């Protein structure tokens, strides 16, 4: 699975996710990637999110939207909301994976509960940062 989130100069957020699914999956199985609110979500009011992981768990938890909801209704910060979902809620249901998220202030979060996640970010005017493993 691949994905991207962005905040532009006008203050607009967007998210995108694309996948080939799971190796050896049953034909017709669909995961979270194409489901708005599960594997992909963006709302200028708070956050843009793209997920990668155990699709069924991300669907059952509406992981991407859950982050927006935790920020909007519970007042959590981006870091708090993404940590809650990726490190607490997803593993309880046996899920593994991670996500990338940016809020409407330009804060970034890229948590994952697996050993690694291919990831990168770049602020306009700064050098890009790339990572694979847990720092």
């Amino acid at each position, binding site marked *: 699975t691949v994905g991207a989130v*962005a905040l532009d100069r006008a203050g607009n957020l967007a998210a995108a*996710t694309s*996948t080939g699914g799971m190796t050896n999956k049953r034909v017709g199985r669909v*995961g979270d990637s194409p489901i708005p609110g599960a594997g992909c979500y963006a709302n200028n009011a708070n956050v843009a999110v793209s997920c990668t992981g155990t699709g069924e768990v991300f669907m059952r938890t509406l992981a991407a939207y859950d982050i927006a909801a935790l920020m909007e209704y519970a007042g959590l910060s981006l870091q708090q909301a993404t940590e809650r979902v990726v490190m607490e809620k997803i593993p309880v249901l046996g899920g593994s994976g991670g996500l990338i998220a940016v809020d409407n202030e330009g804060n970034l979060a890229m948590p994952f509960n697996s050993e690694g996640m*291919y990831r*990168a970010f770049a602020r306009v005017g700064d050098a890009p940062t790339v990572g694979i493993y847990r720092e």
Partner: protein
Amino acid sequence: MEKAVIAIHGGAGAITRASMSAEREQAYIAALSEIITQGQALLAAGGSALDAVTEAVRLLEECPLFNAGVGSVFTHQGTHELDACIMDGRSLDAGAVAGVSRIRNPILAARAVLESSPHVLLIGEGAETFAFENALDAVNPALFSTPERWAQLQQVRDGEALLLDHDAPPLDERHKMG
């Protein structure tokens, strides 16, 4: 402070510790660096977040290292089924496609659904027909296949009896999520 920012991911999973290849690791880092730099440039030029994520994901789909577009994994039956979604935070407009196999860049099909359809999610043949009606070209599903992905399918089918070759990627692609 400049707030404009873009982030990308290429999947998460377990690390192939025993057979990690420095060359393969560098290939992943180079690909991620190139794609994030292009997304950054688009934002720096005043491009929209929607255009930036579309282009970043399109580039990730074109890179055979990642499980989307070219380089997608195989189903049990040895076929490809691709899914994609895009969402615009300004309006909560969203577009998505699922179970397609003849669209080169599923993210562009999802973008077309967002912009040109009253619906949010189209699947299978209907999604492909919609994409072709919206100026996306049909491709042979074999375009998405790579020898590495075929080998991964055989490993899983054979109960992982086969060993990884010496040039394994940093993350264990047999078990990588998403």
